[in-house]
């Protein structure tokens, strides 16, 4: 703890206006598997010391690396062995650089604390510290569950993670937080072109269920056997939670004040305006109990909060840190990123529908269970396309007609929000390789989206 405070104090003495130091020791374990076999077991044992400095509006993001190969770090829970001399040399070098940089004239500083922090439920579980061989059991049980549902082979990953975050700022913040997480992603394959994917994401062990994820992935693989090529056209489309999460994650750049300021967001000049169907209420919650990215403070040390981004279809706010908030003449939403504000846990508020009800009201539609490779033809307008992978079904006259393949969703992000017609009651947290920021969502029915396919 001492080294963080020393860096901030010394930086202030040297004329630095704002300093933020974040020390993060972490221990992460991973088990990867493919073809029902464990392909790799990994341990990451690291400690990072990140430093942000603002010197007369000249901004530097840096880190303090281990100073020499022979010196030692203590283990998790401790600090680094950095000496005052290391820090003095580092700050001297950074300030020298800062003096020749050009100023960011629209930089408005960091938050002034100190702050009071209220704890959040279910973010740290000691049981995750000592899982040992149990992690292999989780993987094997999930594979078995998928196979019992009809899968022929499975691939995926299990992570367990423990970390601490120590925060010191020239705004008077001296705080620490700690967390744990366990997350699992499984893709089950039946025959050629038939597959299903599911995840289980939690901060605590008793809300984690790898077996259930395995069974879900296996069932989707079985249900999607022998898919036929789908046809291009306008469809009513049901997004499974992994699809809704993917699109909400990929559109979340547009919520960041950084991208609005960059001129890249499709939501520029739309605060207070209708950007989605009235059924759409979208929240960022940094304080969600068992929230995958929940924590007591943001990167500036501001206590996290719950922010309605879209309420009943109306855009309420962008996501801010202290500096962007001042520029936009609003209050920070505690989403620092000192440079780039971003969501913590994106939540699409539940509706009152069920998957079966959604299917029953569709005459001509498509049910997509997973997508990847979401890319934008134009960030400013939100024109994008994304490709379904895993189980996809044609819906005819209120019923699942048959599994299909080979289609692509080519549409516009705001149009997707506007076309949302129903949201399911049940929801789950999605976070995996394709969805880096956790999204809590259920099934979503959109009316009239554009599906395309390769013409040759």
């Amino acid at each position: 703890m001492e080294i963080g405070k020393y860096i901030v104090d010394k930086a202030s003495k040297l004329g630095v206006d704002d300093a933020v130091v974040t020390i993060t020791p972490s221990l992460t374990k991973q088990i990867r598997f493919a073809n029902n076999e464990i392909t790799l077991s990994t341990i990451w044992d690291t400690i990072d010391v990140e430093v942000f400095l603002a010197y007369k509006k000249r901004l530097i993001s840096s880190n303090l690396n281990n100073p020499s190969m022979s010196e030692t770090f203590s283990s998790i829970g401790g600090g680094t062995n950095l000496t005052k001399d290391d820090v003095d040399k580092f700050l001297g070098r950074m300030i020298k650089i800062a003096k020749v940089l050009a100023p960011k004239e629209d930089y408005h500083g960091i938050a002034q604390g100190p702050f009071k922090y209220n704890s959040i439920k279910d973010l740290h579980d000691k049981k995750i510290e000592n899982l040992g061989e149990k992690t292999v059991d989780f993987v094997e049980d999930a594979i078995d569950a998928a196979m019992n549902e009809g899968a022929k082979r499975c691939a995926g990953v299990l992570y367990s993670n423990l970390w601490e975050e120590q925060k010191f700022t020239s705004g008077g913040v001296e705080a620490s937080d700690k967390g744990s997480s366990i997350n699992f992603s499984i893709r089950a394959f039946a025959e050629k072109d038939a597959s299903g994917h599911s995840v289980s994401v939690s901060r605590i062990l008793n809300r984690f269920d790898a077996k259930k994820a395995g069974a879900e992935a296996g069932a989707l693989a079985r249900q999607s056997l022998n898919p036929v090529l789908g046809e291009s056209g306008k469809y009513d489309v049901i997004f499974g939670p992994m699809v809704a999460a993917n699109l909400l994650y990929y559109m979340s750049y547009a919520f960041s004040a950084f991208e609005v300021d960059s001129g890249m967001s499709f939501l520029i000049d739309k605060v207070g305006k209708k950007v989605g169907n009235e059924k759409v209420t979208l929240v960022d919650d940094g304080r969600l109990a068992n929230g995958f990215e929940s924590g007591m403070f943001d990167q500036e040390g501001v206590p996290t909060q719950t922010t309605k981004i879209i309420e009943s279809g109306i855009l309420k706010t962008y996501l801010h840190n202290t500096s962007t908030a001042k520029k936009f003449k609003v209050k920070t939403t505690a989403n620092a990123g000192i440079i780039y504000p971003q969501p913590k846990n994106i939540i699409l508020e539940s509706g009152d529908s069920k998957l079966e009800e959604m299917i029953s009201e569709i005459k001509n539609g498509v049910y997509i269970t997973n997508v990847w490779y979401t890319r934008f033809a134009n960030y400013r307008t939100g024109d994008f396309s994304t490709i379904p992978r895993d189980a996809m079904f044609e819906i005819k006259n209120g019923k699942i007609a048959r599994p299909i393949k080979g289609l692509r969703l080519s549409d516009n992000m705001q149009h997707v929000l506007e076309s949302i017609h129903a949201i399911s009651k049940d929801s789950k947290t999605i976070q995996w390789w394709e969805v880096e920021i956790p999204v809590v969502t259920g099934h979503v029915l959109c009316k009239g989206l554009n599906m395309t396919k390769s013409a040759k």
Partner: protein
Amino acid sequence: MTVDKDLIHFCVDSALKSGASYSEARLVSTTEEGYILKNGTPESSVFAESSGIGIRVIVDGALGFLAINKLDKKEIASKVKEVIKIAKVSSRSLKVPIKLSKEKAYKDNWEVKAKIKFEDVSPEEKMKYLFDIEKNLSEIKNKLPSRFFQLATANTEKYYVNSDGAEIQAKLPQIFMYYSIIAMENGDTEQRYYPLGESGGWEILERRNLIGKIKEETTALLKILKQAKKLPKENIDVLLSPELVGIAMHESCGHPGEADRSLGREGAQAGETYLTKEWLGKRIGSDVVTVVDDPTLENSYGFYEYDDEGVKAQRRVLIKNGIINDFLHNRWTASVFGKKSNGAARAGRFDREPIVRMSTTFMLPGDFSFEELIEDIKKGVFIKSYTEWNIDDKRWNAKYVGNEAYLIENGELKHLVRRPVLEITTQSFYSSVDALGKKVEFISGTCGKNEPMDPAPVWMGGPFARLRKIPIGSA
């Protein structure tokens, strides 16, 4: 960086002592600088250093990996033991033990020399480069609501040792420049982004006229907005620029040719591939199509002399005259295929497992000039640059959306067309190519693969390529 060779050997020995049948340790140390100019205003500059060790072991036929930046022998030894313990338990799931192909154990040093070292160019000069781009756009700035320029430099040093006796030391300077621009006319917008990455020093930016290119492409964006017409969907010829050929080679030849993908190892992340071992020797495209992946091209962004398993870098011929010829291999996939590795194992950082990655993937040239390629096109479209693209996880259905594109009529370039969409299967793409330009050009990219994600610097490219009778039209 002073390389503590003793510590790296300690890592390898410590794993063997704890029961590993194979071990390797890779120290990676990187010094990075980064600068951003956003709509004329600098964002935070980045000055970062990182170093750490990645240790990979095989124990009881199972693979384990430890990434650690606490460079202390006691801590390393204890965590190595832990990795070995969990790998031993995981070995019960294996039907076949993991083996690596037998390779010559090289002891060597390699280095890409910067003519102008990054540390000899002041932060002020680096930032000035971005301000010069902005200045060069000043006349049309009011029509560009988004101007984002990024410059990054990195010096990486590696020291690799494995228990087979390989020992490789490497030094690699790399530069990366990225720009993204949105142009607006009467409320209508188009975007252009472009990455440039090379191995070498500051001289790269002096050699490349990026400032001029950005102005030229931005002017083109404004023309697209004013002049481009929609292209009705029909079966016509398509002429692709090296930029389009490059992205297609990366997505629909390089990725599907990664042997680990073919073996299902990336199934839950970067996906699988249509290519199985049985495809070797089978036709995917026309005779003119030959595609290679080559890490040895001078200054290329994915350049290396030895891969991250100590295997010597070499050119791989993935498609030869339209026939599937080879996969990209690391030592594990090579052993499964019963052959030698062709040196495609890479890891971007110390804390990532080395897996099969591309380097520079490109189509070899033909002998046509640009004029010869278009002269017998009755009706077609020439796509010079692209914006959105994607491909399914089998690498079969691809989509490339044109940015700057022109109608071709009776062998002549006509007006601009708006966002033509090439949505095509891999086999149709390669089978439709009938003629190629004389000269190969490259674009840069950052390839995404591995879990967790490990962005890898790559080049991709090819000549101008003519595809006959392709269904294409505006979005």
